Each structure stands twice: as structure tokens, then as C-alpha cells.
């Protein structure tokens, strides 16, 4: 998968088609009955609105004299009643549609977030996180308007248009045809604008995505920028991105703003054409007909103008909708097979059978790897950085699917069981000890939500962070900010470790879990851990030999695969790669 960075536009892979609209409508379909009801209310409100001119007409014709004043008052009261009714009806409608619209937005966002949880590491690894973030938040907000008023207005205006067309043909079909002559011209103009408009708005969404991605990275990496005094360079990049955003915006909005005047001009022209044709070429025509047709032609273009405006917002929204759907269509590569069973309680045997794996096609990381681990064994993986140690442990948790071969746990192929049942029985501590904002307690409970406070404290005692937490102002309920700012790297690792231990895993994976912890603390930690590792299969990646010496088996992983395997003493006796590594560390 091609990686993306902040200043690379993401090409849209699918061309626009009506499917997007249909798909958007499936979200609306859930609220069908409410949408139809509000449509019905709208129609009644419109009809009530139509009654008002009739009342006024009657009043003007009959009540504008001294005798008519009582009747005039009645008329006024009737008019007021009409207004009140139509206002309350449209309020009810708006209320319903607000609900529907907001709920649709909620649904889309929920689905998107759900899908995000299933997306593999590659998805997150291959693009700036800011680009993902704006899709879930800002893009979804951008389509909210089209989802609410868009649908209703579209239907209403179309109905309006049809009714007026029928009226026109009923009154004078010849002049009606004159009005319709404007349509092809109008259509051509709109088509011309539309094609450019869509591309232009796609560019806008692309540029805004770039801008936000860069912004996001700049916020996250602000301290690095400061220590490298990059502020000016970064401001320059931001400036460039902001400028190109402004440029594409002006272009897009330039097209969008054309729609409205175009309608206006065509509308007036057809009106002029009616007067001209009617007066010059149709001598016998009644005055009333011409007047009425002039009026109708104005009314004919009104809904068209509304529809064009709607199209404007729609095209704008579609450029965001496309991105949202593109993300929803992003394939979930690592997923439960159809009919996958739950992993039975894990005993802890792990077998690699002829495992081959590559992240991106071409560069194979592991080739025909075979090894067996018995339940309860502790395995240390050592070797040069980048040889594939992390890859091996990632495959046990099925973070990636294999290119070839099989990984078995207790004779169950891990690709045949559900991910949740597999991973929830494993404890994986990654290199990056991510701490969420919240209290320390929240972070610890992430390992096991129903753990009691005593269990949490016990886990912290094992890793030796309990005493430190107690010195904090609010103890376990001290708030840590984003990414655990305020804690040292070593403390974060200890908390992450406690969190992993708390999940009571059958298989424990520690990937550089103690790299930032000083030697003495680590020694203390080791005693607690040894006790804990009993009865669990564990995989430990570490560079510090004091950590790995006590493991049941040490596997030396190099570019060529596992080249040495055995206990510490065996490997030392062998005087191979591990021996070299060990002697390098000796002071």
C-alpha cells in the first residue's frame, strides 16, 4: 500500500456514481416513516400557505368599503389563523427533520468509527492520522445539511415544479413550450458548471485534508519542532498548504456561485420571450393568459433555482461523502472468518508452521519459519533491530495475516478463531506504551474492566509502581493528560506493564517492555515477573541480557530467520551469535 504524507493528495479511487447517493439514502431509509410524515406535513403547510392569497384577494375585492369592515376583520382573523397553522406545521416538520438528520449523522459516524476499529494496522500506518480524524469528525458534519433539509426540499421542489408545469400547459401550451425552450440552455449551463464544480470541490476536500493532517502532526510534534527550531520552516509549509487551500476554495466557490445568476438570467430571458412571442406572434391571445404565463414562468424557475442551489450543496457534500464511503469500503484484511469459532481457553502451546510473511509485496520479512513452544515456557527473542522479532510476536496475536503457513495455538489455527476471543486471552505490551488521557486508574482498568481496586494495586505492586502512584496528589485517581504527559517514560512503561498483567493473559507478549526502566528497578521488577510468568507462555523481546537470561529458551532472530535456539548456557557454550551479543554487553 502506498504510504501517504501530509502534502500528497489522496486520489479518489472510485468515480462518482449514483451509488453514493443510493448509499446515502439507505441511511435515510431507516427513518422512512418520519421523513414521509414530515413530507406530508410540508404539503399541508404549503396548501395552507396557498389559502392566504385567496383570503387577501377576497378581502380586497369585497371588503374595502365601510360596510365591509366587519367582514374584513373576519378575513384578517382567518389570515392570521392560516399563518399560525402553517407556522406550527413547519415547526413540527423542522423538529422531526432535525431529529432525523442528526440521527443519520450519528449513524454514519457510529458506522465509520466501528469500521475504524476493524481496520488493520496498515491503514493507520500508511497515512497521517489527521486525515483519518477529519473524516470521522469534520466530513461527517459537512454532510449533515444535505441529509436533513436536502432530501425534503428536493422532493418538495420537484413536486412544485411538476405542478407548475401542468398548470402552464393547461393555460397555454404554446407559451409553455417557449418556457421549456429555456430548459436545454439551462441544462447545458448547469452541466458545464457541474463537471468543473465537482472536481473543484474534490480538490477542496483534498487540500483541507492535507492542511489538517499537517496541523495535526504539528500539534503532536510541537516539542520536536521547538527543540529543532523548525517553527519558521513549519510555518512556511503551513502557509503553502493554507494558500493552496484558499486557491482551490476560491475556484470551487467561483463555479458554485455561477449557478444562481445563471438561473436568474435564464428565468428572465424566458419571461421576456413569453411577452415577445405572446404579443408579437399570437395576436389573438387574451391579456389574462399572457399575464398568467409571465407569472408562471417566474414560478417555474423558482423551484429550479432552489434545486440548483440544492445541487450546489449536494455536490459539495458528495465530495465529502465519497471520502466517507471510501473509508467505509476500506477492506478489513484481518477479520473473523465466516463461521469462525471462539478460541477455547488457551493452554499456551504455540506452533509456527512454515510461516512466511511480508508487509509489502516484495520484501519478505520471515521465510518458512518453524518453531514450537510448549505451554508455560518463557521465550526470549533476541537479535539485531529490524530482524523481525516484533513481526513474530505480532503474528501470534494475528495483527497481520500470514503470507504463507500457519500459526497454531493449542492446535487451533489462529486464523480460524474469532479475533476477540484470541486477543482477549493474550496480554500484549507493545513498544509504544500508549497512555490515554484520564485517570491512572482508567488506564490500568483498560487491561480488565471489572478488576477490583485491590487487584489493580496488586498488579502495580508487582511492577513496582504502586509506591510512586501513592505519592501523587490523587493517588490512583490522578489525571494524566494525553499520551501520559507528566509521567516519565519509565513510569509509563510500568503502568502499561501493570495494565497488561491485570488482563491475566494466558500468553504474554512483552515487546521491549522494560527498555526505559533503569537496571535496578528492572531487577526488582524481574522478581515479581518471574512469579507471574509461571504457568503462562511468554514471549519477551529485550536487549538487556539480564532480562532474558532467565528465560526457558532464547531464540536468536537474524535476517536469516531463527539461527540459534536454546537456553542461555547452551547458547553460550555454542559460541555463536548469542555469545557475541552477550560478551558485547559484559562491562
Amino acid at each position: 500500500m502506498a504510504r501517504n504524507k501530509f502534502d500528497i493528495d489522496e486520489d479518489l479511487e472510485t468515480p462518482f456514481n449514483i451509488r453514493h447517493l443510493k448509499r446515502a439514502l439507505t441511511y435515510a431509509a431507516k427513518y422512512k416513516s418520519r421523513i414521509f410524515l414530515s413530507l406530508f406535513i410540508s404539503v399541508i403547510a404549503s396548501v395552507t400557505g396557498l389559502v392566504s392569497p385567496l383570503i387577501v384577494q377576497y378581502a380586497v375585492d369585497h371588503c374595502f368599503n365601510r360596510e365591509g369592515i366587519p367582514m374584513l376583520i373576519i378575513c384578517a382573523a382567518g389570515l392570521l389563523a392560516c399563518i399560525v397553522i402553517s407556522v406550527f406545521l413547519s415547526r413540527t416538520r423542522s423538529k422531526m427533520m432535525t431529529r432525523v438528520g442528526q440521527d443519520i449523522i450519528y449513524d454514519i459516524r457510529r458506522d465509520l468509527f466501528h469500521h475504524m476499529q476493524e481496520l488493520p494496522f496498515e491503514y493507520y500506518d500508511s497515512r497521517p492520522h489527521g486525515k483519518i480524524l477529519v473524516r470521522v469528525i469534520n466530513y461527517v458534519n459537512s454532510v449533515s445539511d444535505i441529509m436533513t433539509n436536502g432530501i425534503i426540499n428536493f422532493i418538495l421542489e420537484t413536486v412544485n415544479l411538476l405542478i407548475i408545469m401542468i398548470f402552464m400547459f393547461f393555460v397555454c401550451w404554446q407559451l409553455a413550450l417557449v418556457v421549456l425552450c429555456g430548459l436545454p440552455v439551462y441544462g447545458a449551463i448547469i452541466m458545464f458548471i457541474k463537471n468543473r464544480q465537482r472536481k473543484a470541490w474534490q480538490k477542496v476536500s483534498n487540500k483541507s485534508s492535507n492542511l489538517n493532517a499537517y496541523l495535526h502532526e504539528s500539534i503532536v510534534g510541537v516539542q520536536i519542532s521547538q527543540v529543532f527550531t523548525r517553527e519558521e520552516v513549519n510555518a512556511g509549509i503551513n502557509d503553502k498548504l493554507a494558500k493552496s487551500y484558499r486557491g482551490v476554495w476560491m475556484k470551487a466557490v467561483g463555479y458554485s456561485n455561477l449557478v444562481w445568476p445563471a438561473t436568474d438570467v435564464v428565468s428572465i430571458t424566458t419571461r421576456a420571450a413569453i411577452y415577445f412571442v405572446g404579443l408579437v406572434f399570437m395576436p389573438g391571445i387574451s391579456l389574462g393568459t399572457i399575464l398568467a404565463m409571465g407569472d408562471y414562468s417566474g414560478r417555474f424557475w423558482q423551484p429550479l433555482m432552489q434545486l440548483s442551489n440544492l445541487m450546489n450543496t449536494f455536490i459539495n457534500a458528495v465530495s465529502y461523502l465519497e471520502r466517507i464511503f471510501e473509508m467505509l469500503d476500506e477492506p478489513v484484511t484481518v477479520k473473523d472468518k465466516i463461521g469462525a469459532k471462539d478460541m477455547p481457553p488457551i493452554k499456551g502451546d504455540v506452533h509456527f508452521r512454515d510461516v512466511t510473511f511480508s508487509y509489502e509485496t516484495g520484501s519478505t520479512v520471515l521465510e518458512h519459519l518453524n518453531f514450537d513452544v510448549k505451554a508455560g515456557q518463557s521465550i526470549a527473542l533476541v537479535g539485531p533491530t529490524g530482524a523481525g522479532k516484533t513481526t513474530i510476536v505480532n503474528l501470534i496475536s494475528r495483527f497481520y495475516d500470514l503470507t504463507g503457513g500457519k500459526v497454531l495455538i493449542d492446535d487451533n489455527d489462529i486464523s480460524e478463531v474469532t479475533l476477540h476471543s484470541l486477543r482477549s486471552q493474550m496480554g500484549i505490551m507493545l513498544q509504544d506504551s500508549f497512555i490515554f488521557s484520564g485517570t491512572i486508574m482508567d488506564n490500568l482498568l483498560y487491561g480488565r474492566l471489572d478488576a477490583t481496586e485491590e487487584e489493580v494495586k496488586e498488579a502495580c505492586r508487582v511492577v513496582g509502581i504502586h509506591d510512586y502512584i501513592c505519592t501523587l496528589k490523587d493517588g490512583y485517581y490522578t489525571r494524566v493528560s494525553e499520551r501520559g504527559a507528566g509521567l516519565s517514560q519509565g513510569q509509563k512503561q510500568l503502568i502499561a506493564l501493570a495494565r497488561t498483567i491485570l488482563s491475566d493473559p494466558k500468553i504474554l507478549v512483552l515487546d521491549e517492555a522494560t527498555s526505559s526502566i533503569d537496571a535496578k528497578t528492572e531487577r526488582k521488577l524481574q522478581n515479581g515477573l518471574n512469579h507471574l510468568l509461571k504457568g503462562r507462555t511468554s514471549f519477551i523481546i529485550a536487549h538487556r541480557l539480564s532480562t532474558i537470561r532467565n528465560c526457558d529458551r532464547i531464540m536468536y532472530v537474524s535476517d536469516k530467520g531463527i539461527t540459534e535456539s536454546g537456553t542461555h548456557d547452551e547458547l553460550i557454550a555454542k559460541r555463536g551469535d548469542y555469545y557475541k551479543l552477550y560478551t558485547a554487553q559484559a562491562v
Partner: protein
Amino acid sequence: MFLLRWLWKNMKGDRAIYCVALCMTVICQAMHLIAPHITQEIIDTFLVGEEAAENLRTGTDRLVFLLCAMIGFTLLRCVIQYSSNMCYERASQGIIYRVRKVLFDNIESQDAQFYDSHRTGDVMTVVTGDLEMVRHSIAWIIKTTLECIVLYSATMVFFFTIDWLMALCMMVMTPFILLITKGFRRTVGPFYVTLREKLSEMNTRAEENISGNRVVKAFAREDTEEERFDVCNKAYNEANKKAAFTWLKFFPGLEITAQSLSVICVLFGGIFVAWGRLSFGEYAAFAGLVWTLSNPMRTLGNIVNDYQRFTASANKIIELYYSKPFITDREDADDVPGRLEGRVEFKDVSFGYGRTQVLHDINFTAEPGETVAIMGATGSGKTSLINLIPRLYDTTGGQVLVDGHDVRKMKLKQLRGGIGIATQDVLLYSDTIEGNISFGNIDLPEDEVEKYAKAADAHNFIMHTPDGYDTIIGERGVGLSGGQKQRISLARALAVKPSILILDDTTSAVDLETERNIQDALDNLDFPCTKIIIAQRITTTRRADKIIVLRDGTIAEMGTHEELIRQNGYYREVYDLQK
């Protein structure tokens, strides 16, 4: 008013355009009022007048002229309107562009204290959602307000010239509208403040989920995450509805009041016609222009609604716009041009975050070219100590001196420009490997990039990546192993050829052979450099000129490797552990 002044200030450069646009809006509104007269003229002359048939026969030219005038007039109005719209867009984009620039500069210059209380998601909300709201306001709110005022006052003037009593009757509803809008404004304001708070929270939730996606998967906590996000999503949904419903609560009042103008028009118009005060024609003039009064009244509600929304967002923007970091250049800062010598001195330094004291009475000196190793238990204050050198934080007591200057009295750019730092929490950018290494020194030629990559022992693995130095690495360097990230971060620090190199446990995740290579490279750098290195391994520290052991924020041991081994303290213990 402060908000408007702030907008005006940021409109600098587009003010003329904006004023032109406002004038064009006024012209357009006037043209709107005039346009019906041409149609009227055609109808009167050629259709309903007594000499209509006669006129038609003799005056076809005039008909064509009038029709062309009608089209031409509309065309002209459209051109003006289009231009004015584009001017508004230009001006609002201009403002956004300028504000965005200031915000970005501010984001870049904020110190750690700011980021302890502002989460990434919060700041993102300001620069995305809030800024968008402001753009909308400038393009829409002010323009619409002006349109309303012009339309309303022009019509009122016109009405008073016809009949003052009738005109007064038509005005009678105006105070009610104003009253209702005032009530609405007070009520709806807080809802929009809540709304954007909820948006900010949702943003933060999603942001952390994306950043922490590996941990989420490792703990199979997808369900929990969805539940948590759902809470935010729902809260935002509710807040949106609440704000909208508040508007709908006031909507009938506003709408009925505005529309009742037509009732007043018929009722009083009828009575006045009956009394003979008004002619039919004059009544028609009133009736024909009722919409020009009621439309502005109806729009007023929308304007207030959007304005409240705008205020909620603008306040957040302004907060960020004017927030100044505590750590900035002092006005009387010393000018220290040229390359630093690299002398670092701590004098009675104490430091703490808030009330918790982290460092006490730190005293030591690192002479130019020396290597100082810092050791100590987890949480003993190592990272806090080195953070004081590039002045990421200010000391609470004592002085940190670089080349004899108190760092608080140095220009940040000069101070930090002389320091290369590889932090513990490695943060790389989604850029090419080359772009990451030359991050602090963007003009670095390619062969030097390679040179420093080699010094950090990163060259070999880089050559194994698909595109070598042009390989794009993910945000935070995801996709690379911990050791690989650390080495790129080290190369990045070396690439600025610093006078002071600070390494915060930079080799903790690399294997020992690599570490040895790095050690050798560090000893043979081609520029003079003071090194301050936090390390856990004796192999790293033994070569140092000075080793400092921190315990609970104080210096417990200080000396060379040989001296400390003899002391039987922490260092000796660690030495024995690693022997």
C-alpha cells in the same frame, strides 16, 4: 463589538474588497426594488393600458427595447451580485488565511504548560470546526444583516412618503420582533457553547483512538472504544438537537410576528381605503412590498442564531489567538550570535511541575566537548533535568547557563539552534526518511544525510526499505521497530551539528552491537560537541567524562566511572548487575 474589531483587524489587506462588496450588496438590493418597474412598464404599456393594442402595433421597437432592458438589467444585477459574492469569499478566505497563520504560529510556540491543559483534539477543533464557522459568518452574517437593513429602511422611507399612518401601522410589529430576538439570543448562546464543547470532546476521543489504535487492538478493546465514542457521539447529537430545538421554540413567535404584517396590511389598508385615506393604487404599493419588511424580520432570527454560534466558536479562536507562551524571548535577551561553545552549567537548580518538586539543588558543569552521562532510577528526574537545557521548561530556582549565559536571557532560536536532542518518546513525521533526518537542517545535502544516518548506524536498514531514503514512514514512525525509530531520531539530532547533543536514553531499544557502533561514531563526530547522555547501560556511561547519578531529584553521586565504582553506591550496584 470586540469580535467585530477583531475581524476587522484580521481583514487587513482585504478591507477595500470587503467594502466594495458591501456597496455592491446595497446596489443589488436597490436593483431588486427597481426591477419590477420595468416589467410593470411593459404590462402597462402593451397589455393593460387603454392604448395597448395601438402601442403594440406602432411600438414593437420599444417593446424589444424594454424586453432587452429587462434582460440586461437582470444580467447587470447578476454580474454585480456574483462579483460581490466573490469579494465576500475572498475577504473571508483572507481572514481565515491570516487567522490560521497566527493560530499555527501560536500552536508552534506554545510551551509544555499549554499542552498539559489543551488536548490535541481541542486544538484541532479550534482550527477546523471553529474556523469554518467564522468563515461562514463573515461571508454570510454581515452581508445578510446589511441586506436586511437596506431593504427594511428603504421600504420604510418609501412607505412614509406614501402615508405616515399606514407606515406606522406597518412598523408596529418591529419592537416585538426585537424583543423576541433578544430573548432568543440570551437563551441560545449557552447551547452553542455546549455544542462546541461536545464537538471538541468527540474530536479528542477519536484522536486518541486513532493514535492508540495498537493498544486498542492489543487489548481487544474495540467494543469498549465504540461504547466510549458512542457516548460522545450521542452527546454531540443531543447538543445539536437542543440548540436546534431552542431555535424552534422561538421560531413560531418570530415567524408569526413577521408574517402578521400581511394581516395588518390587509386590515388597516382595507380600513384606510374604506375611509378614503388611501387609494387602491397606494394600497397595492403597500401590499406589493410587505415581503421587503417581513423578510428581514424573519431573517433576523437566523442571523442571531448564526451569530451566537459564531460567538461560541470565535471566542475559542480568540483564546488561542491571543494566548502567549510563558517561555518566550525576553526583551533584554543577550544576543549570542554564531556557534555555541557548548558549556553547560547548572547552578543551584530546582524545578517542579506545579506543586510537586522534581529537582533540588542541582549543581554541575559540562565543559565544551565533554561527555556527561546521567543515570538514575525511573522517575528520578533525568528527563526533567535535560529539558531545562533547551529551556522547554523554566527552572523554579537557580540558573541554567549555556556558555555563561542564563538560558532565560538567551534568544530561544539561538539557544535551541545550538542544541541537538533525541527524545525518549521518539516522534517522527509522516515524511520520507530523508525528510525526517534533515528535519532540523532542511538544507542538508544528501550525502550528509547519509553520513549522519551512518553515524547513527541507520544506513543499513534504511537501504533495506523499499525506497531507501525516500521511503515514507508513517506518523510517529509507525512501521519501524523501536530501535530503528531511535536511530533515525539520533541521526536527526546529529544532522543539526549541534554544539550540545542531548540523548535521552536513545539507545535503549537497539541491540548491543549497534550501540557499540553508535558509541564509536559519537566519539568521532566531525564537529565539536558537548554530549549529555541519559543511559541505563554501563557500556554507555563508562566512556563519559562525568557521570551523574540522580536520586529523587538530587545528585547522589558524581564522578568518573572508576571513581563511582569505588563508591559502593547506586552506580556500583548497577555495574554489578550488568557485569
